[in-house]
């Protein structure tokens, strides 16, 4: 189980390969720079809608985290495995 940390700390602790190829699942709070045209973190709005906002709180996989991180997203890991 992961403790609270910043996305940068998480990335530096585990590295690209490990995050990509492990079965990583995270709960994150995030904020993309306003210049990002297509933010990639899905947020469930209700039972039938998923949106991709510039900021919010959501669950995501390791590969989604990596893409968001590469897009300059400010991420706070709230928990995960």
């Amino acid at each position: 189980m992961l403790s609270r940390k910043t996305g940068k700390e998480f990335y530096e602790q585990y590295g690209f390969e490990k995050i990509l190829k492990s079965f990583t699942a995270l709960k994150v709070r995030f904020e993309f720079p306003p210049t990002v045209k297509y933010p990639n973190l899905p947020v469930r709005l209700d039972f039938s809608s998923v949106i991709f906002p510039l900021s919010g709180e959501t669950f995501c996989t390791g590969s989604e985290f990596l893409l968001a991180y590469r897009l300059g997203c400010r991420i706070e890991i709230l928990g995960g495995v």
Partner: protein
Amino acid sequence: MRDTSLLSPSGMSLKSIGLLYPDLPLEKVELSKQELVNMEVFYLENPIRFKQYALQDAKIVLFHALEVQNSHFFFSKKYTIPITLSSLASSYLETELLSEGKYHPPTQNGLISMRNIPKILTPSGVELSGDLHEYIDYFLGSYHGGRNESYIYGVVKGEFYDYDLPGAYPTAMAMLDYPN
């Protein structure tokens, strides 16, 4: 309830499914554009042909479903109609690997199957699943389904393009690595 388009390669039409069996009288009855536009008129004007059309469609579906069921039994010794062709394939692979002792279904402590999520979230499941119940939520929450967006709404005048990438997700996943 089954959908034949999910039980045929790349969502074939019913006509193409009928053609998979050239030795059998399973050719789809073709209707004219006029007949297709108003089925009620078609029925009133030509009830015999209407009946032939409806029955032939049902025959194609039934025969194909039974063939898929037969294949499922042949490959996996399961006498049911799978939901999709891919589930037939994974069922076959699992049966083969299990029989060779190369596959062990994922369990926690040998007691709780990781496939049976509702059982994990019961009083006995929580106690018997080790710490699985603590992190299963992260995996469940991370599954959002495919991304599908429409950026512009309204009437389009002139040409427009609709891009679809069949199998985009599994293709990207296959590029990652082999699962361990």
